C-alpha cells in the first residue's frame, strides 16, 4: 500500500488496536451494538467519521474514512455498516436541511438513524403523515428514517417496530415498521440513486474489509490445520485458490486507495466478495459452518451486502458509464 502516507498508516494501526481491544463480533451479533459500543465508537470519532466538526464529527477525508471502514469490517461488518449508514447515506440526505443539527446526537452515539433501501411504497397525506410498511430495515430503532419516495423525506419516530431475526449484519437490529408517522421533505427529488452512487467507494471499502477478514481467517487456518497428514496449505488446489484470492484482495486495495474509477472498483469488489467469502468458509470444513470460528459471518454479510447494493440497476449504471466513456483505443 505504498500509496498511503505515514498518517494513514498511523490511522490503520489505531483502528486495528481499537478493534483488537474492543470488538467481539460474536458478542455483538448476539447482543446487538449497544450503548457502550456506541459510546466507544463515538469517542474514537468513528460514528461521525465524515460529519463536520461543528456537529462533533471527525470531518475525515475519503482515504481515512475508507481505512476505518475497511479495518472495522475485518472485525465487525455490522459496525462498519452502522458507520456507513450514518456517514454515506444518512448525512448526505440531511446535510443543508433543517435536520442537519441532529448529526450532533448521531456522531455522539446518542441516537440511531436509518435509511430505507427497499423499494417500499408509502402514502403521504397533506397533514405531513406517512403511512405504509417499511420492510426489512436495518436500525429500525431510530430517531428518524430517510425514505425515498418521489421526494426524499424523513419519517419521525416513534416507530411501530416488528423486530425480526436476520442473518446479515446481525449486530444491527432488523425488522419491519408499520408506518403511521409524521414526515418532512428534505429534498424535492428522490436522491436514492445519487446517494448510493456517491457511496460506491465506501461500499468497496467495506467489501475489502470483509474479503480481507475472510481470507486472513482462511490463510491462518490453512497453516495450522492438518488433514490426511499434511497442512491444508500444502494441498495445492486450496493453496492456489487462496493465493489467487489474496491477490484479488490486494488488487482491490490498490485500486481503491489509488482512486481508480469508482464504477470499476465497485464492480470488482462485488464480483469477488461472495466467492472469496464462500471459499474461506469451505477451507474451514465443518468448523466453517459454525459461528464460533468467526468466518461464516463474512459469507453471510458478503451475500447480504451484494443483495442490497448490487444488482441489475448497478450493472446498468456501469454499462452506461462505460459506453459513455471515450474508449482508450482507436
Amino acid at each position, binding site marked *: 500500500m505504498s500509496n498511503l502516507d505515514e498518517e494513514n498508516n498511523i490511522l490503520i494501526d489505531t483502528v486495528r488496536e481499537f478493534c483488537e481491544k474492543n470488538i467481539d463480533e460474536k458478542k455483538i451479533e448476539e447482543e446487538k451494538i449497544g450503548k457502550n459500543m456506541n459510546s466507544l465508537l463515538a469517542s474514537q470519532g468513528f460514528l461521525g467519521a465524515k460529519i463536520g466538526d461543528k456537529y462533533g464529527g471527525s470531518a475525515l477525508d475519503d482515504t481515512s474514512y475508507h481505512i476505518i471502514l475497511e479495518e472495522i469490517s475485518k472485525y465487525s461488518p455490522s459496525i462498519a455498516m452502522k458507520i456507513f449508514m450514518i456517514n454515506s447515506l444518512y448525512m448526505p440526505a440531511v446535510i443543508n436541511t433543517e435536520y442537519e443539527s441532529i448529526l450532533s446526537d448521531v456522531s455522539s452515539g446518542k441516537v440511531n438513524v436509518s435509511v430505507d433501501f427497499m423499494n417500499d411504497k408509502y402514502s403521504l397525506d397533506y397533514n405531513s403523515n406517512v403511512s405504509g410498511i417499511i420492510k426489512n430495515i436495518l436500525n429500525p430503532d431510530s430517531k428518524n428514517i430517510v425514505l425515498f419516495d418521489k421526494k426524499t423525506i424523513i419519517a419521525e419516530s416513534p416507530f411501530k417496530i416488528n423486530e425480526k431475526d436476520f442473518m446479515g449484519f446481525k449486530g444491527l437490529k432488523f425488522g419491519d415498521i408499520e408506518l403511521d408517522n409524521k414526515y418532512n421533505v428534505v429534498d424535492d427529488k428522490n436522491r436514492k440513486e445519487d446517494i448510493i452512487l456517491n457511496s460506491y467507494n465506501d461500499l468497496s471499502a467495506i467489501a475489502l474489509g470483509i474479503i480481507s477478514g475472510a481470507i486472513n481467517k482462511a490463510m491462518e487456518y490453512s497453516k495450522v490445520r492438518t488433514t490426511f497428514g499434511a497442512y491444508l496449505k500444502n494441498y495445492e488446489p486450496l493453496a492456489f485458490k487462496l493465493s489467487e484470492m489474496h491477490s484479488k484482495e490486494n488488487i482491490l486495495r490498490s485500486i481503491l486507495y489509488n482512486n481508480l474509477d469508482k464504477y470499476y472498483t465497485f464492480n470488482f469488489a462485488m464480483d469477488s466478495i461472495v466467492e472469496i467469502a464462500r471459499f474461506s468458509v469451505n477451507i474451514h470444513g465443518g468448523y466453517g459452518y459454525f459461528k464460533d470460528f468467526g468466518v461464516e459471518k463474512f*459469507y453471510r454479510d458478503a451475500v447480504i451486502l451484494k443483495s442490497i447494493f*448490487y444488482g441489475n440497476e448497478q450493472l446498468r449504471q456501469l454499462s452506461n458509464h462505460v459506453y459513455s466513456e471515450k474508449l482508450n483505443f482507436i
Partner: protein
Amino acid sequence: MFEEYNDYRKTIRDFALKEFTDGVAAKYDRDEEYPDDLRKKSLSLGIIDMQNPAKILIAIEELCRIDAGLGISVTTPYFGAEVLMLFGNDEQREFLNDVYSGKYILGLGVTEPSGGSDVAHIKTTATKKGDKYILNGSKMFITNGAIADYLVVLARTSNEEKPHHGLSTFLLNTKLNGFKANKLEGKLGVRATNTAELTFNNIELSKDDLIGEEGKGFYYIMTFFNISRIYVAAQALGIAEGAFDKILNYVKSNEIKDENTMFGIADISTRIEASKELTYNAASYLFKFEPRPQLTSMAKAYAGETAVYSSEKAMEILGVNSLNENVERIFRNAKIMEIWEGTSDVEKLIISRFILKGE
C-alpha cells in the same frame, strides 16, 4: 426409474407444503431446535420407506425443496442404517425395525475433531478387554448426536501398518455410562438438525455390539458413504430447486422481463437439470446394485455446487427483497452441501482417482 413415483412425489410435496410452512421453518431455524413433532407426523404418514431407496431419494428431494432444515431433520433419524442392513447380524437388522418405526433415533459417529474427511486416521479406540470393548475418544459434527438413541460408531480396534485396516464399527447405545453429547449451536444453516460433539469415556461395549467383522470398519463406512452421498445429492438438488422456485415466483409476480434475469434463469435451470440427471443416473446404478462411485461423487459435488449457486443467485436476483428470512434461509442451508459427507474437494479426488483407474 423415477417417473413411476410421480404420485408419491406429489404426496411428499403436499405434506411438505402443509407442514413446512414459512412460519414453522423460520421458527425451528431461529430456535435451532430439532422438530420432533414433525418427525413423528412424517412417521405416522409412513413417508419414509427404507425398503425403497428410490422413494427415499424422492422424499429427500421434495422435502428439502420446501425446507432443508426440516427436510433433513425428518429424513435423518435413519442415518447410518445401511451399515447395519448390509453388514449387521440378524439381531442388529431386527433392531432396525425399531428405527424405521420411529421408536429409536439412529446416527453415525465417524468424523472427529482433528480428522475432517480423513477417516482412516481417527483416534477413537475400542480396546478389547475380555469379551468387551472399552470405547474412548471423541467425535465431532455428529448429526443427531444429542438426540440419537443409538449410534453406529467407528473406532480403532488395532494398530495396523495401514491405518485403515485397524478400524471397526459398533452399535452404541447412548444411554451407556461414559457417553456425553454436547449439542453444537450457532450453525449457519440447517439449524433444525441436531449436531453434537460426543465424548466416550470408558464406555463398555459388548462383543454383540460389534457390527460385522473386526478390522473391516473402514470398508463398511466407505461403502455406506458411497450410498449416502446420493442422498446428499438429493438434498442439494431439492435446495437448488427450492431456491429456483423463489426466483420464478418473484420474477413472475413482479413481471420481470429483462434479459439479464432471463439469462440467469436459463443458467440456473440448466445447472439444476444437469444436477437432476447426474443424481438420478447415479442413483439408478446404485439402486440396482451396480454402484459407480465416480458418478455418485460427481452428482454430489455438482448438485452441492448448484445448490449454493442457485441460492446465491436467488439472493442476487431478489436483491433487497431477499432479506426475507424465507429466502435467505435457503442460502444459509445450501452451504452445508459442499461440506458434509466429504467436502467437494474430497469428491474431486475420488472422481479423478476413478477416472484415471478406469480407462
